[in-house]
């Protein structure tokens, strides 16, 4: 297995959500390769498939014009801004050395992210309930979705997230959230972190990587999903 690595440049985070699903669908139907994506997005709140709307300060989101999007996977609400590094892995479940049980697979990928963060000089651990912590503070969360045996595992790493905005927009964070830069006390190059995650991932799965681009089909499906699903009233239901 060789893993295609992509850097997405979404104008809005919702475009990246649509693109992730497009890659998953094209992996399933059009022979797209297993893919590892990275992206950063403008400020927004992303809720899980089950919405968890009670955890979001809607009034403040509206006042500050922070858009709220719904993703395809489950899990809690997250605050996104340029201080986050997002990653997503799309792969055939039987093609990679990940268990088919999503909670075990999630734990393995969280551990890989924890190792990459540890490479920066922090003591990071994959948490039992999902995500990665550093010194008791959550620095990364993740979620998964499986479609016809193809996995989308995506997660977010708080590199230099605006924690003040996060605490006001997301009402219930069971575990305190911190950022890598706060814990490390210095600036972090997100590209370097992405490279470390990629390196740990390829070492774990005994694979190679290559820099790639979105195919025309993936771009087309992403645009269609964006218009017909991710920006639709039907999907967002608000």
């Amino acid at each position, binding site marked *: 297995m060789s893993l295609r690595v992509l850097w997405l440049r979404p104008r809005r985070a919702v475009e990246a959500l649509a693109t992730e699903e497009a890659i998953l669908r094209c992996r399933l*139907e059009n022979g797209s390769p297993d893919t590892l994506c990275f992206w950063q997005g403008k400020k927004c709140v992303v809720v899980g498939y089950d919405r968890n709307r009670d955890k979001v300060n809607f009034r403040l989101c509206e006042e500050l014009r922070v858009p709220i999007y719904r993703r395809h996977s489950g899990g809690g609400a997250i605050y996104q801004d340029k201080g986050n590094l997002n990653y997503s892995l799309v792969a055939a479940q039987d093609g990679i050395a990940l268990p088919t049980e999503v909670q075990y697979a999630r734990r393995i990928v969280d551990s890989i992210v924890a190792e990459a963060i540890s490479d920066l000089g922090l003591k990071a651990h994959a948490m039992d309930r999902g995500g990665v912590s550093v010194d008791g503070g959550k620095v990364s969360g993740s979620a998964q979705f499986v479609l016809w*045996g193809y996995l989308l595992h995506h997660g977010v790493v708080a590199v230099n997230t605006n924690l003040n905005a996060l605490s006001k927009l997301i009402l219930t964070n069971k575990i305190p959230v911190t950022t890598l830069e706060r814990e490390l006390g210095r600036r972090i190059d997100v590209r370097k972190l992405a490279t470390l995650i990629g390196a740990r991932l390829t070492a774990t799965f005994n694979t190679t990587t290559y820099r790639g681009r979105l195919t025309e089909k993936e771009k087309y499906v992403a645009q269609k999903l964006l218009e*017909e699903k991710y920006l639709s009233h039907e999907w967002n239901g608000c």
Partner: protein
Amino acid sequence: MPKIKVELFIAWPPTSLCTQLTEMTRRVAAEFGEQVEINIYQRGQPYPDWPTEGFMKLRKLIRLPAILVDGELLAERELPTEQKLRATIKKKLKK
């Protein structure tokens, strides 16, 4: 009056495999006439009918797609064969 309910849980919008599964289910169900009712739920869309208790219990755990017969999971993540679906429906109707 339908005797049993076949429930499909598929992606929204459906993938081509989801469409194949829907067509296959409709084809098999048609062999049993009004004894079998099909409910199709698309993930993220309102349910068109009240799902079975079995589906409600499984809906968060299920990996797409999934097919349930009378509230019992027949297959998930893969296409069941027509024979398997037909045999399961027959078995349920005999009860």
